[in-house]
């Protein structure tokens, strides 16, 4: 399958979304990403049992935190898909990119080097 997804997305690989901490999501934004989404396995299918559930809770926490510091919560999102769903990943990537584009550039961009990022 040769699927295309927006070239503005930078992928950060982690062994499990359970490895994604709150600070990782915040740092991505602080360093200039316009948005971040966490792509986890389907709920109930985590190889480490609860990794993706934990990630979802952390994403929810970050979204609330963003609201309190004047950033749009929608810059951060959690998606679930199985590893066999390449087309779904491409589709979500486009969807998230579009959503973030509507929000405009990250208003706190300090250096402006990194762009959208996915893990």
């Amino acid at each position, binding site marked *: 399958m040769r699927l295309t997804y927006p070239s503005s997305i930078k992928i950060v690989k982690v062994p499990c979304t359970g490895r994604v901490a709150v*600070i990782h999501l915040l740092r991505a*934004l602080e360093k200039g990403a316009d948005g971040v989404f966490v792509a986890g396995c389907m709920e109930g299918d985590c190889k480490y049992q609860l990794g993706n559930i934990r990630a979802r809770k952390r994403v929810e926490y970050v979204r609330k935190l963003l609201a309190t*510091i004047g950033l749009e919560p929608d810059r951060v999102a959690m998606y679930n898909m199985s590893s066999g769903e390449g087309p779904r990943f491409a589709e979500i990537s486009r969807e998230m990119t579009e959503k973030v584009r509507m929000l405009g550039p990250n208003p706190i961009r*300090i250096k402006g080097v990194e762009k959208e990022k996915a893990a």
Partner: protein
Amino acid sequence: MIMARPKPIEEIVREIKDLDKVLVAGCNGCVAVCEAGGLKEVEILASALRMYFARQHKKMEVGEVSLTRQCDREYLGELRDRVGDYDAVVSLACGAGVQFMTETYDKMRIFPGVDTCFIGVTDEKGVWSERCQACGSCLLATTGGICPISRCSKRLLNGPCGGSSKGKCEIDKEVACGWQLIYERLKGLGELKRFEQPTPPKDWISSREGGPRKMTKEESRL
């Protein structure tokens, strides 16, 4: 240990908004265990503050550090060379740590970054509950190891009151009735005799009521 919860960011912002350089100082003791003021929380708060002020187009440098403990001068001393670079410190330690930081660096403005809540335990990951109010004269031996002062909403010594219902306290259906727990425990131990004796008024002098407390262990002093 001592349990605390992070203060809302708005509250911290209100105190530091007119400053330029702030150090967020965590404590790796109790508040790290209850995920309120350890290194992780320092990083999150510092990052959030930087983003907040960037959004406001306000220059703000936010430093990060976390000490082994803030209730010992030895560890607080580690900041001696750094602290002068900042306009203020936001301490994520418990109320004791914040005050000791204030006493150690008496020229520095120190703001609390957490609300200190109680002495308690970790029920499960992410859930903490109270067990002790540091009354200064422990009576757990007579109550089957369950404290009526911290577990009964009215700190009754001859409970349970008439508001105990189905094992829960009258103030909240989520709160266990401390005296129901004590009763069951004493019954299980075959020590109900203890329950049947009226407990006389407690001497609260060793508690908060007696004024700020201090203790000395002479043989430990240098």
